[in-house]
């Protein structure tokens, strides 16, 4: 009987973290350098292909395709991860309120939002993996 290969939950989250790191790196590079002007066409095509593969991997892992089912421990670690992320976000907002000057404002473009989203998703995966490895 042919069985479908199933990724462990840990492996799936490792792949997801790697993919979000690639997307984050691409977003940060794009912010710093005029990619379209600097890179020749073959390299741009290669970079685009890499990002498409990465996006496909992110969608696959996010949907839990080919991934084993979670259990009570992974559910507990997911809750801890979300709680820790919210606490970090809460502290970041508090710091921003404390140190932001009068009239300070933030404008985020679509690229910035994607980069920020990638950073949050990467942090979420890394925190989960940390809890899986070290937490009781």
């Amino acid at each position: 009987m042919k069985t479908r290969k199933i990724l462990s939950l840990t492996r799936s989250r490792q792949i997801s973290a790697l993919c979000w790191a690639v997307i984050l790196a691409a977003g940060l590079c794009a912010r710093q350098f005029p990619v379209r002007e600097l890179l020749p066409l073959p390299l741009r095509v290669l970079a685009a292909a890499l990002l498409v593969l990465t996006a496909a991997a992110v969608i696959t892992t996010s949907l839990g395709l080919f991934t084993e089912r979670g259990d009570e421990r992974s559910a507990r670690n997911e809750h801890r991860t979300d709680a820790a992320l919210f606490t970090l976000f809460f502290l970041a907002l508090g710091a921003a309120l404390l140190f932001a000057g009068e009239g300070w404002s933030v404008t985020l473009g679509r690229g910035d939002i994607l980069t920020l989203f990638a950073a949050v998703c990467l942090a979420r995966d890394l925190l989960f993996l940390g809890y899986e490895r070290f937490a009781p």
Partner: protein
Amino acid sequence: MKLVTKLREHRQARGLDQAELAALVGVRRETIGRLEKGLYNPSLKLAMDLAKVFGVSVEELFSFQEEE
């Protein structure tokens, strides 16, 4: 107090590997590994499911020891 378990002994006596035991009680192999090392406190349901697999009481499988 530290949780002490005889899970590994019972599992090996039944000739099961961690993945097989995990499949029987509906958890991941890693969870069984951490349980056996005493690095995870199971829920009551999981403890009872494990005890049922081996035909023993929960107390025979898990106990608490005073930490020195």
